[in-house]
Structures are given as structure tokens and as C-alpha cells.
């Protein structure tokens, strides 16, 4: 919602998220396979992953701040909030659950992030268009954006059953 009102920020956010997700799935894979499992500390998985994700996000934030102050400002509070994006943790956990190997994990993380990015960017482009639309007063802003998101998910239902395995 916050970053998807403009394509520019959405693209920035997408890159940040992709970076975080890929890196997080990589790290979590390593940690889980080389630290937790040997030490039979699987029950700590979720906790460790949260730690990993938080670190990666912080790191990303610093990098973004350094490399593109403008983007940093535009993303604002939403950059650290990637931490709470369930997709990130979900991907990391799913990686473990589905017993992906190292490369599968990375690709899985990257793929999920790419999908997220695509939707985010599309959504932002739509919202830019909507900004000029003559939306009734009570539905302006987030309301119509939510409706749009709903319609988008309708459309994505078309892909159901697409993956056979």
C-alpha cells in the first residue's frame, strides 16, 4: 500500500525485497543445514530465521541509504518493514520444509521475490493510472486500491491448476 502508489518506489521496493528474499533464503539454508541440523536445534529454526531476516533487512537498508538516498527517503518506513513481510519468512521456512537443496533454495527465494515484484510493479502502475480516475469520494485512496487488488487476485485465479506438480 505504502510503496505501491508510484512505479518508481515500487521498483525500488521490488529490488530491495528481491535482494532480501534471495539472500535470506540463502543464509537460512546455510544456517539450517550447517548449524541447526548438525546441532539438532531445529526447534530454533523460526527464531534464527527471524534473526537472519532482520539482519539482512538492516544491511539492505544501509546499502540503499548509501547508494540511493532518494530511494531511501521514498521507501521510508517501508524498507525496514520488509522484515515483517511474511513472504520472506515463509520462503525461508518453506525451503526447509520442502527440503530444497542449496540452489533450489536460492532460486525458490528469487522466484518468489520476482513474482512479488511483478505484482507490486503492476499494481503500482495501475494505481498511478487510478490516481487520475474519477473515483467516488468514499472509495478514494486505499479503498479503491484494495478493490483493485481483489480484482487482480481474481485474475490470478486463472493460473490455478497451472502448476501440475
Amino acid at each position: 500500500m505504502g510503496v505501491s502508489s508510484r512505479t518508481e518506489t515500487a521498483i525500488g521496493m521490488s529490488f530491495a525485497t528481491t535482494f532480501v528474499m534471495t539472500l535470506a533464503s540463502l543464509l537460512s539454508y546455510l544456517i539450517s543445514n550447517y548449524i541447526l541440523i548438525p546441532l539438532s536445534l531445529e526447534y530454533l529454526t523460526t527464531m534464527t530465521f527471524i534473526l537472519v531476516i532482520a539482519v539482512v533487512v538492516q544491511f539492505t537498508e544501509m546499502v540503499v541509504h548509501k547508494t540511493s538516498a532518494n530511494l531511501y527517503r521514498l521507501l521510508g518506513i517501508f524498507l525496514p518493514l520488509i522484515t515483517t513481510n511474511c513472504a520472506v519468512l515463509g520462503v525461508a521456512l518453506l525451503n526447509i520444509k520442502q527440503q530444497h537443496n542449496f540452489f533450489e533454495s536460492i532460486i525458490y527465494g528469487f522466484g518468489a521475490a520476482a513474482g512479488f515484484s511483478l505484482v507490486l510493479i503492476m499494481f503500482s502502475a495501475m494505481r498511478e493510472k487510478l490516481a487520475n480516475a474519477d473515483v467516488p469520494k468514499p472509495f478514494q485512496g486505499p479503498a479503491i486500491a484494495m478493490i483493485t487488488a481483489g480484482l487482480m487476485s481474481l485474475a490470478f485465479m486463472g493460473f490455478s491448476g497451472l502448476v501440475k506438480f
Partner: protein
Amino acid sequence: MSIIERIKKGHFWKFHGGIHPPEQKFLTNDKPIRTLDLPDELILPLQQHIGQRGELLVKEGDKVLKGQQLTLLSSPMSVPIHAPTSGIIKAIKSSTIAHPSGLSDLCLFITPDNVDKWQERQSCEDFYQKSPQEIINKIANAGIAGMGGAGFPTHIKISSKPSINYLIINAAECEPYITADDLLIREQSTTAIDGIKILDYVLQPEHILIGIEDNKPDAIKALKKATKDIKKITVCVLPTKYPTGGEKQLITALTGLEVPSGQLPINLGIIMQNIATCFAIADAVINDTPLIRRVVTVTGQALAKPQNVWALLGTPVNYLLEQCGYQATKDKNLIMGGPMMGFNLANDQVPIIKTTNCILAPSKQEVSSENNEVDCIRCGQCADVCPSQLLPQELQWSAKAKDHVQLQKLNLFDCIDCGACAYVCPSQIPLVQYYRIAKAEIRQQQMLDVQAEKAKIRFEARKKRLEQEKIAREAKHKKAAEARKASMNKKNEGGSSATSAVAAALARVKAKKASAQAAKNNENSITEQPTQDIDTKSKVAGAISRAKAKKMALNKEAKENNTVVEAKVVNTAKSNKTDKDKDKDNDNDNDKKARIAAAVAKAKQKSAQRASSIEQKPEIQSVVEENTSSRDENKKAKISAAVAKAKEKAKAKKLATAEIKDSQTSADSEINRQEKKKIAIAKAIAKAKAKAKKQQKEETK
């Protein structure tokens, strides 16, 4: 060269988009150009073109001859105007001008004496005798500005001179209804071609292309006949499509080149002139006839006799309509220019100006006045017809949302206002209107940004200056305090009285003012730091006079007549000053001060003059005296002299008030130092205040 080969073969390029509105040229293109009788009154707006208006040379009641120059070519971007006939200048006042806004501007009203007496003319049969510069000057003085629509001063266009590849003569006349150029070519092709020859001589282009649409067969024939002996000139017959006559579109159609955004055709080595302008050039150079008349298509189905006419500049539109048999309807719909890009007139007293090529009086059926705008359905037809390949509908969305950043990203400023998009729009959205508003808004925003930037710089310069001043002042204060202490001690011995204290305070104030003035000089030198030569000085002077002029403009409505006289005064004053400029280069500080004094005095004299113009002369003298006397003396002396002089003047009382007030401020700062003085000064202040109040009251009375 492939381009020219291609042109010779008659293959041209296509520009994107374009439309084919009903031409309606048959209304007027079968009748010869009619010469009209003199109207009862001619209204000449001082500004008829892009740029600045010239300075007025005549005043009310003057008798002028036909062709007499009325305004001065004062700045490069100005174009003089000339009397279209002999007669008397009845009035100089503001009146509605030919501008889409329907606003008023300063106009000359000439009552013709029906003698139509020419001023002396020197016709020049062989212009090759003259130097190109002479010809350019001639064109400039003949008041020729582009006659196609925009009215860009011609002499500027042709005096920029890198190597010119193409001189393009625009005879496309793509707007519906208009046949003025068509008829002009048919009837005056020789003169028009002479004009092209003159341009050829001045510009030395490699090729000359005449772009004309194929819906004017007679004109094409005439042009071909007239140019068949001239190898350089190619008559290029283009398919009819609106807006072929647009500058950029014609260039693309003829040469395949595109004018880069934000640049002028000259950057591609191309110069374009309208065919009517060529005719005017020839008339000016060969016959010494300034631009005082033009062909105007008076057309539309609300007219009984639509026809092309030779209209003197300044002819009111209603006279033209009358002559062409206008049947007025209840809602008058008059369009100056063509139906695509012309604008509605707010009243029919508007005069014909240099850029007016058509007066359209359509019937209700021809031009629908209804507006059935509905929402855009993004059908994209506008994008298909846009000659600039923009996305009109996206522009429209952004314009409605006032998203200026996005508008600029979508290249709003490459829009040429041609109206093709609005023409085809099935939702009947007045797209051009939205763009115009958006453009104006963006332009204003940019102006404000520039202003803000300027203000910022000035503010920062001032801050810096104030800081420096403060340091200087502190130093001075220290010194003064010490001196005072010494003197105070003496006085204390003798026993102090209130009056002497005030006197001392006054003296101090004077000293302080002197230092302040000195600081002011410094400040001037700070603000205009590096080069303290005449240039900067004259800039200051220029700024003052500019400010004056602006202010006068503010006052204008009320005091139209005064303005002219005042302008003259400014001129004389200015010339005084320039004389002075010559003999003083050395003493910068003094010089500057003298100048400021002069400027201020000038202003004062003006205000005085407004009250009564009798005192004018002695005042000027006094100013001159003041300047000359002050020049050689040192600062302090000068100020005291000035003060003295000021005291002599009628406003002495007022000034005294101010002085006491000043003393009050300065005294304030010293209160805590001298306990004893305090009471006395406070008393003085109270007194002064009371006095000041009283005087103010009197003044307001």
C-alpha cells in the same frame, strides 16, 4: 545530396498524424483580393508580435503621414509600427487587442484625414546594391514580423547567420477556410518571389524550398511560372493535410529532418519564412513601404460576401465584417485565425494586426457551439493524429490531475496547439484547452521557481552583507563610545542640560548616518562584487528605470496620458546621465552614490511633476547641481550638503520628523551606557514622538 534529389523528384516525407478537416476554401478562393475604403478609425496596438513593444514616438494630437514610424525600434526584440494612412492621432489609450485573453493594451487611435498622403519614400530598384546588413535594418525598420501566426520579428530570424542549408518558404496554408496566401501568390507572385530573392541575397542558403499544399493549383502554377528561371528555388507540392503548415511539420515533410525538442530550426540550418512575409519584405525593401497592410481572408457562412481583402493594419474587425455583408446573429461567434487554431474575439472593435490572416464568421451549423464533453475512453485516436507524436489522452489525464512532472515527462511542451486531437476526439474533450492551461501553469511555476532562486540568492547576499556591516558597526561604535566618553567627561564638568544632550545626540546620529551611508556604499559593492565598472553601474540605473517603468504600468490605467510624458522625462533624464557617465570613471563610490541620488531625485521630480508640472525644470537643475557638486567632495560633506538641501525643500518638515525618529533608534542603543543621559533623552524621545504624531496627523489631514 540525397535530400535535394529526392525533393527534385517530388518525393516528400510524411509526418506523423494529421487530419483532413473540411477545407471550405471555395468560399473565398475564387474571388480577387478587394481593396477596401478607409475606415473611420484605425486602432493600432503598440505590440503586435512576440517580444517587447517599442517606445512611442508620437503623442496625442500629432499629425502623421502614411508610413510614418510611430514607435521606436528600441530593443532587439521589438518591432516598430507605422501609420497605415495619414491622419491625426486621436487618442493613446488602452483598448481590447487581438489576443485570446480579450485583455486591453495600449493602442494608438488614428483618425484618417482621407488624403492618404505618403511620407517621402525612396524606392530601391536594385537591392543588390545594398549590403545585407542594410537590408536587414530596412526590414527591421519596416516593422516586419512573421505574418503566419506567431509574429516573430523577422529581422532577428534572418540576422542569425550560420551557414543556411535550406530556406523554406511556407505557403502551405493548411488551415481550413484561409486563402489569403493563396490569393496573394496568385496576384502578387512577382513581388513575393522578389522577397524570396532578397532573403536569398541576405541569407545565402544552399536551397530554397517553397512548401505548398496541392489544394491550391492556381497558386502552384503561378509560383512555378515565376520561379522557373531560378534554379535554386524548388516549388514543393505537398499533399493536403492539416497541419502541414506548422513549422516543424513542414520541415519534416520537406526534408525529413526533425527539429530537436526545445531547439529552433536554425540549429539544423533551416530558416522558414511565410510567403506573406516575403511579400512584405519585398514591399519594404524595394518600394520602401513599411508593413501597414495585409491580406485578410474574411470568410464564413454568416457572411454574404466572403472575400479576401487588403486590410490596413488597425482596421477594426466590425468594419471588415460590414464590408463583407455580415448578418449578425444573436450569439456572435467571431474567430480571428482559422477554425483550428484561431481564437474567439471578445468584441468586434478588435483591430487587424500583423499576424491576422483570417476573420471567420461562421454560421451556427458550421461551428458547433455545443459542448458535449464526456469522459475519455482512451480510444487513442488523438495519438494517431498528433503531429508531434504525443499521447494526448495521457496528457489530458495528467493535466486534469495537475501532475506537472508527468506532463513534462510526456513532453507537453512539444505540443503545438494544432488542435488535431480535439478535432478527432469522439468524447469531444477540449484537449487543447487543457494543455494550454497546464502549459500556462507550468510556465508560471517555472517563473516562480526562478524568482524564488533569485530571492534566495539575494537574501543570502544580504545576510552576508549585514553580518559584515555589523562587525564594521561594532568597531565604529567602540571608537565612537570612547570619543564620547571623553567629551562626556568634559560636559559633565560643565553641567549638562537636556537641550545640549539632544544636540549631542543629533550630532551622533549624523555621524552614524554617515557611517551607515558608507556602509551602504559598501553594500552596493558587495552585491555587485567583481566588476565595478560602468556596466554594473548602468545596470543599477537600468534597474531603477525599469522599476519605474513597471510602476508606471501599474498606474497606467488611471493616468494614461501622464505615462507618455513621463516616459519622455525618463528619457531626458537618462540621456543626462549617460552624458555624465562619460566623464567619470575613477571615483567609483562617489559615482555610484551620485547615481543613486540622481535616480531617486528623478523619481521625486516625477512625483512632484505629477502634482504640478511647473516645478519640473528647476528641480532637474537642482539635481544636476547636486550631482556635480557632490561628485568631488568626500562622503560626509556630501551628505550634510544633501541634508541641507533637503531641508530647504518643501518637505523639510517631514524630513525633520524622520530624522528625529532616526535619532530615537540610535539613542536607544546607547541608553544603558550613560545613566545620566537616559532621562534627558527619554524626554527628548517623548517630545519627538509627540511631534511626529502631530505632524503625521496633519499630513493625513
